[in-house]
């Protein structure tokens, strides 16, 4: 290939805020629920209904704005974005165009090519749309307004990214910040974090941008990466063939791994924004910003530094644990109870992550309580249970959040420390396995392992492994 191309990417990230109620009415934002159960006249656009702004939405939006170094707009307003679609009950969306809540921020991302700033152009508050389900049998669509009116913050970046890696790093960074703030759970698969990708290509060294397209319907990090690669190639091919890229919105089909233009005669893309007359301006003074700033939780960078100081755990562990606010919270809460940071970190880093992988669980979906993990660590530490049992019990905790103290007692899992019982079992193992005994006596150290196993078997796995070994040695050597 003769020419070298550079990909230029800007992102519009939508985040559903973690409020209890919708942005303009007192309906629950809870995910799921039978169709249209979380609805009222306001979020279904009934004639005569009027919106009233949920203050928590502004608080969350401000928290995100401050954490991403944005300038807060002292007087911000809502505007109406007019377009017809059945998931949009009023056929206008209440959003912000002329005076969004914040502008000109940035986040730092780290990729293989180093550290880089991605600038944020602006950030605004708006309402989410309802959900459309396509009924294949009847060839119709069904409308559910449960999501209609759920508060969103849209974060619009500058076209500062140059690769899928950078895009993913940027999204991960935003996700971390927002999760840490508690402003959203940022679950891509449930749609509480979504991204539209604006992408263009240009020859390396070209001072101006190429024509960009907007890609929608990207539901996972993998889809985003695939869509970026496909769109980059599509645009380069067009240019190489002497064609021109058309500025348009395209919809990504992740199953077929290709995108198609969402073009329609009826889709004029002329939103006729104007100031929302049913809502009044929001005046955000220094005191309000200060209140949010001082209530701001510790973000990840600060947390990492503190972990280094406070806890004696490897830096690698600290990094992994703090990648999710939920995981970090688990770590800190458990450590606060049992005061064994290294052990806690181990349980989280090894067993927890293993089971998460096995069961396809996200950090945010972990259900076990820190006190149960702390109890388990104590049980293992004071040798009430041995490590094999501990792992079994932990799996129960992981899946059902059982109380390990009760469970161990009820199931009779406590380690057998009774030397008499152990000696009896050991003698049985020796008499039943003369071959291993002979091997051992002939210098095969390893053979002891088999005898330990057999003894433990008789003890139903609950023998104190230290004592079992000791007893075996003394029986065999004497």
């Amino acid at each position, binding site marked *: 290939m003769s020419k070298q191309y550079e990909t230029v990417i800007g992102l519009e990230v939508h985040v559903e805020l973690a409020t209890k109620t919708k942005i303009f009415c007192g309906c629950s934002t809870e995910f799921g629920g039978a169709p249209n159960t979380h609805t009222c006249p306001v979020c279904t656009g*009934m*004639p*005569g209904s*009027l919106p009233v702004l949920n203050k928590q939405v502004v608080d969350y939006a401000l928290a995100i704005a401050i954490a991403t170094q944005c300038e807060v707009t002292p007087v911000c307003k809502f505007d109406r974005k007019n377009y017809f679609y059945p998931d949009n009950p009023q056929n206008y969306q209440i959003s912000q165009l002329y005076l969004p809540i914040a502008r000109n921020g940035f986040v730092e991302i780290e990729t293989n090519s180093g550290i880089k700033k991605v600038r944020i152009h602006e950030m605004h508050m708006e309402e989410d749309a309802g959900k459309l389900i396509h009924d294949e049998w009847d060839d119709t669509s069904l409308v559910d307004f449960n999501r209609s009116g759920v508060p969103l913050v849209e974060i619009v970046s500058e076209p500062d990214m140059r690769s899928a890696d950078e895009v993913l790093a940027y999204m991960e960074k935003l996700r971390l910040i927002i999760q840490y703030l508690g402003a959203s759970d940022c679950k891509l698969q449930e749609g509480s974090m979504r991204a539209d990708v604006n992408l263009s290509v240009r020859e390396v060294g070209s001072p101006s941008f190429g024509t960009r397209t907007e890609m929608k319907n990207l539901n996972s990090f993998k889809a985003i990466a695939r869509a970026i690669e496909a769109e980059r190639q599509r645009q380069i091919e067009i240019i190489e063939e002497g064609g021109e890229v058309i500025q348009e919105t395209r919809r990504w089909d992740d199953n077929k791994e290709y995108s198609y233009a969402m073009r329609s005669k009826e889709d004029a893309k002329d939103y006729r924004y104007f100031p929302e007359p049913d809502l009044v301006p929001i005046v955000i003074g220094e005191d309000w910003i200060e209140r949010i700033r001082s209530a701001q939780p510790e973000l990840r960078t600060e947390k990492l530094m503190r972990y280094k100081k406070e806890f004696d755990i490897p830096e690698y562990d600290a990094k992994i644990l703090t990648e999710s606010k939920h995981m970090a919270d688990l770590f800190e809460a458990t450590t606060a109870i049992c005061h064994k940071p290294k052990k806690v970190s181990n349980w989280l880093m090894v067993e927890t992550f293993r089971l998460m992988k096995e069961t396809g669980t996200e950090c945010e979906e972990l259900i076990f309580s820190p006190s149960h993990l702390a109890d388990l660590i104590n049980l293992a530490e004071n040798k009430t249970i041995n490590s094999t049992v501990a792992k079994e019990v932990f799996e129960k905790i992981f899946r059902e959040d059982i109380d390990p103290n009760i469970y161990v007692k009820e199931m009779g899992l406590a380690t057998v420390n009774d030397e008499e019982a152990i000696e009896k079992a050991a003698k049985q193992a020796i008499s039943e396995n003369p071959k291993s005994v002979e091997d051992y006596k002939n210098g095969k150290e390893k053979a002891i392992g088999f005898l330990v196993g057999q003894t433990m078997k008789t003890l139903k796995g609950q023998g104190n492994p230290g004592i079992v070994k000791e007893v075996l040695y003394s029986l065999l050597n004497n």
Partner: protein
Amino acid sequence: MDNNLMTGVTLGKKIKAKEISVKEALDSYYKKIKEVDLQINSYITLCEEEAYQRAEEVQEKINKGELASPLAGVPYAAKDVLCTKGIRTTCASKILGDFKPTFSATAIELLDNEGAILIGKTNMDEFAMGSTTETSYYGPTLNPHDKERVPGGSSGGSAAAVAAGECAFALGSDTGGSIRQPASYCGIVGIKPTYGTVSRYGLIAYGSSLDQIGPLSNSVEDAAIILDAISAKDEKDSTSVGRDEYGFAKALADDVKGLKIGIPSDYFGEGLNKEVADVILKAVDVLRQNGAIVEEFDLSLVKYAIPTYYIIASAEASSNLSRFDGVKYGFRSDDFEGLHDMYKKTRSEGFGAEVKRRIMLGSFVLSSGYYDAYYLKALRAKALIKEAFNRAFAKYDVIVAPGSPTTAPKLGESLKDPIQMYLSDIYTVSVNLAGLPGITIPVGKDGKGLPVGMQLIGDCYNEKTILRAAYNYERTVEETKCQNNMKQL
């Protein structure tokens, strides 16, 4: 005098004194409706069953002494732009079909609390867009004073119903004069309060930044008492404004001594019917004789009010009315191919010509490339108009204006030329643009015997001042009437 034309206050007193039962009051209004409404067509929907049921509850409360409001048991009508729970609400449009709201407007609920009884929903211009009540899907309303003429609009059904004795009072809505102008044409009292005084929750929006609900009544006292009942800060309406004190009725002092009244010379020049001007200026003279100080002045910017109004109102309407799409409620066309065709057919068949005209204009002025030239320009003009009023109110307590340039026109005359019809709002729209309170009161008749209304405009939150002036005029005229009657005896 027709029993049905007594004021709401008088009727309320008779009900409280057990001279008349709530049921009897309802009987008398429903009887009247059955006599005259086939001709006048004030009502779109009657809710007799609900009204009689409510009457029993209210009567019981009155008997027990639990309900002492002056409006307890008083039958009223509401413009069909106000949502009424379980009672069909049409906005006089085909597109709403048999829509039954699942909640009532705050103003309706507040009247309910007072024990007033809703007897029906009145006719109007479709979606309140019009000045004659001729654009209704349910046919025009006629003016009770002359059945060849319009009652004005858009609250024409409410005005005609009050004037014809088909209810004790009515609620209307006013976006550009829709309470004050029909009140003028029908010879009754109509007040549009300061923007934000009455909650808009449950008012089906036309121009959200201009819409206000207000009463149409047979007396200034009624107007004040109803306004007291319906004014409140509402948590459901972000634009509603609370006040430390309401007490409109208490402020009705029969005294205008020292009150400074400004007469805009640009309102009383070209374009105003001579007879109308004469009747109004005679009424101003009454106030002057009672001690008001009257002065002429230039308000300025008068001719810019209507274009400003039509840009803002149409733009907001084009957005407000986009929710009527055949998906969630109301009418859906039954012949279409695909989603967008359904939208278009539903809306084209469901909306009338005037509504479509304004939606088209509103969509155009907001469309890409024109927003600044039209919409922003209008918002700037609005700021200037507001400033002009601020200057005027620095000097005057009350500004006097006609309710309309003429008395009620004949049916069919106005719709021929939309702009001519729009011009009939010239004395009322600026009041909406500036968010001011305005009241029209009957001050006499022209040569054809048609009522003339005088408008009194106050500064923001100064309803009391204009109510006081209106009350003073009304009392003076009542006394004169009594004296004349005595002479005749």
